[in-house]
């Protein structure tokens, strides 16, 4: 029974990783860049929800929406100001810019919000579901997290496969030049991708902060690295890959914490990653690109 508890909480953690990993994987798929600032957008989302709920006394639903709005805008603004002028630049320049943006967000929020840790309010839900005569306890929050992840995945998959914008996004991911020739506005499409990724980061932030209720300016960096790992684990650029990678990473992390060692869980997670990449060099669901000469 304890195993099941760990498995389910791992699944919830994995769901959060998957939602963050989506942001990485979509941006990578379309703009071919590693957006290192993504983790810090999560942090901003957490603070936005905190202030909306605690300081302005808004209702939870409005707070969540406000947080999503702030992150979406922030994502689009960052893309316009920092990444767009570098469309033609080398990928390393873009990487360094992303790192600069990440530092900027971290230190900026440290100045604005202070470096002390704030307690995130329980705005979502409390209590837990009791099964098997109370031997298995699953908090509603855990179930809600997994549910949210499933909903987001379904909606996003439908969006990308069925809508016109989704089609434009797939086209841009494949070949930007050709997409432009077909009358697709590449810049707008990239902006939309950033908006969706950043909005999802806000959702992830609220789920993450509700589970681990402490808020600090460096909140986003570790989940960011983990989710980035999850995206690569599943095959970067692939949306089902992000889901699979996120869930597996969450489960592996939680099970190693429970059964092997808390301190070594990071080492074990990353070792598994290296082994997987050695066996499947493009991640679990990544496509191998054949180079034509």
């Amino acid at each position, binding site marked *: 029974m304890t195993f099941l508890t760990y498995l389910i909480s791992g699944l919830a953690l994995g769901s959060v990783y998957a939602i963050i990993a989506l942001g990485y994987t979509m941006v*990578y798929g379309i703009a071919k860049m*590693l957006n*290192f600032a993504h983790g810090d957008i999560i942090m901003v989302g957490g603070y936005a929800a905190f202030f909306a709920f605690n300081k302005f006394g808004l209702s939870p639903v409005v707070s969540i929406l406000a947080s999503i709005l702030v992150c979406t805008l922030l994502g689009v603004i960052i893309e316009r100001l*920092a990444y767009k*002028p*570098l469309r*033609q*630049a080398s990928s*390393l*320049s*873009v*990487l*360094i*810019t992303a*790192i*600069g*943006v*990440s*530092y*900027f967000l*971290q*230190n*900026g929020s*440290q*100045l604005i919000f202070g470096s002390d840790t704030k307690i995130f309010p329980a705005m979502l839900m409390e209590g837990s579901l009791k099964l098997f005569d109370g031997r298995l306890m699953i908090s509603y929050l855990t179930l809600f997290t997994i549910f949210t992840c499933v909903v987001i995945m379904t909606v996003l998959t439908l969006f990308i496969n069925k809508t016109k914008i989704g089609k434009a996004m797939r086209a841009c991911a494949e070949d930007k030049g050709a997409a432009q020739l077909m009358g697709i506005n590449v810049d707008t499409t990239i902006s939309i991708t950033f908006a969706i990724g950043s909005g999802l980061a806000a959702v992830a932030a609220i789920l993450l902060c509700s589970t681990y209720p402490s808020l600090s300016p460096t909140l986003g*960096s570790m989940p960011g*690295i983990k989710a*980035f*790992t999850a995206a*690569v684990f599943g095959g*970067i650029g692939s949306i089902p890959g992000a889901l699979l990678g996120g869930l597996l990473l969450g489960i592996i992390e939680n099970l190693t914490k429970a059964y092997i*060692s808390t*301190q*070594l869980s*990071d*080492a074990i997670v*990353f*070792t598994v*990653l*290296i082994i997987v*990449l*050695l066996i499947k*060099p*493009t*991640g679990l669901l990544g496509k191998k690109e054949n*180079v034509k*000469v």
Partner: protein
Amino acid sequence: MKGIMNTLFGKKNRSRTISFSLVILVYIVIEILMHAIRMPRLFTSLLVPVCCYIIVALALNLVVGFSGELSLGHAGFMAIGAFTAVAVSGLSASAVPNGMLRLFLSVVAGCIVSGLFGLLISVPVLKLSGDYLAIVTLAFGQIIKSLINNMFLGFDKNGLHFSFVTNEVSLENGKMLLSGPMGATDTAKISNFTTGIILILITLFIIYSLINSKYGRTIMAARDNRIAAESIGVDISRTKTLAFVISAALAGMAGALYALNYSTLQPSKFDFNTSILILVYVVFGGLGNINGTIISTTLLYVLPEMLRSLQDYRMLIYAVVLIVVMQLTNSSRIRRFADRITDLFRKKGEE
């Protein structure tokens, strides 16, 4: 005379001559300044760390600039070198009382152990490329940090004691070398600026000898066009391994020098942010540009320290500098302007 000038300043060796003379000149100036006037402590305390970061940035430039592979885990190699050096220095403290000799032994040990890990990690290096390789090196850095975070090593008259994850080392009148998340405590500070400069010169010598040799040319050929290089018989896996192992060993050397400059050192010092910091130095200095790396590392390491009076704003300014420089160097208008200026100079030179 003309022959000497040609070997020193000829097209092929100009960069090398500039590098060596730059380093030696800076060393002489700083030494004279230190003897002539009392330099503030803040300044002197920066000297050895700057040397360490220059070495590790040069090492990373070998991988990123010359070999064309992105590594996000060079702090991991630094950590290996650092804590190996701490252990070697601590163990040999009574056997080798001479600080200079012990520093040499520790640095060599750090170099070798780190190089061996470099060999280990170069197995995936050969199989993967691009961002997948970057993530493997990132993972490697995290693994190393978390392993060292859980290591406990001490010694007393009964010999070495080691434990993992939980501290079970009990010593009789002995000394702890590594104590988990606390890292190295009470290390003898035996690094000095002169050694730092000597190690930079050695690093420069190794890198220049490598890139001007047959192996160096194959490394760059493999970077520029892997398929073309392979088709004319370049052994890609061997060249990439070579570059990676040398880079890892040099990073370990830098770590060793760094560790022996402080009495306490925590493993968390060598985290992902440090790897990124080193990468920033390399990209700022220019990929494959050795003199650029030296200058950018010095400037970017000293800048946040100089901005200390601005306190909370210093990292914010640092971030803005990173973003703005990347925008400027990649802006076509600025580039055209720079081209025009270099054209102007070139024309004058030809006249």
